């Protein structure tokens, strides 16, 4: 069996990896939040496959708090 590296496999296999893995830089000079990519909230909920409004609401609250914290650290 040989490993595949086709583009369609890249997206399916690596979307989790690209969004959650890879080296993280924890430094004040990093604009984007290290623990979560700054993707639009509605999009983030969509791509996470959130099924319920309750989960969606919780995610937005958490994401809002993280962004607020990042903005405060940069002030």
């Amino acid at each position, binding site marked *: 069996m040989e490993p595949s590296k086709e583009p369609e496999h890249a997206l399916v296999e690596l979307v989790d990896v690209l969004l959650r893995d890879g080296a993280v*830089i924890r430094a004040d*000079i990093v604009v984007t939040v290290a623990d979560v990519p700054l993707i639009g909230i509605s999009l983030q909920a969509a791509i996470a496959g959130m099924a319920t409004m309750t989960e969606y609401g919780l995610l937005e609250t958490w994401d809002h708090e993280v*962004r607020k914290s990042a903005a405060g650290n940069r002030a």
Partner: protein
Amino acid sequence: MSDGIVTSRDQAQDRPEIDDGRYLYCLVDPDQGADLRVEGIDGQSVYLINIGDVAAVVHRCTQIYDDTSIDQLRRRLLTHHNVVDQAGDRFGTPIPLRFHTIIEGDDTAVSEWLRDQQEEITDALSTLDGAWEYRIRLNWDDEALERHVSENSEQLDDLSRRIDQAGAGKKHLLEKECERVRREQVNAYKETVVSDLADDISPDARQVDLADAEETVSLAAGDGDDGSHSQLVVLASCDCESTIGDRLDEFADCETADIQFTGPWAPYSFVPEFGDHNGAK
């Protein structure tokens, strides 16, 4: 904001703004190559910020990329991956950075950070030299799993006999018990298969880890993957690729799972975390 629902106005107020920044794709050892010619996210020009022993592959940006559609996100993810892939072909195994890592400042800011972290980066590049990530995904056939377990379980045989002989009330309880036992034994069987596969591959790999199969994000159009799966991430050199493939061929006859083997990828799952100028992490 009320009940945790964020309005677009709230979102805009919290959004970081940058005048000048650098989007980081990966870190490389520039001694192994001269330059890199590849298009970056949204057509931006990719270039190296090189301090000698280490270099950062970047593009200049004046915005963050949080305001996007799924299609645009899909394109940007693939572009990020492609830049890292090309960098790996050019310079050897890179240290890939997480998607959407942006440093505020100009090239000097990046250079200063590289100098500050030079020892850690050099160590990581040395450790990963020649190694790549491979991913082995077992897509379980849930019906075949249950069939296999049912056919090989004395406990389920016994429960089945007791169900046949039980009255209506007790029958229901026994059926619930049977479901519970079947679930447990299916999970135990899956764990055994994955563990045996990892043990089989380990002699040919630098590291084999079980990926967290619960956190799965799907951006593939029409992705109807509703079945369960397990995943191994393997750090190995390309020399061992065919040996690992041979071992997977033996498992390919497994009736309870379909195996997908992908790679080589940059080692996203095996890279360290980096700190700031003060060394704090």
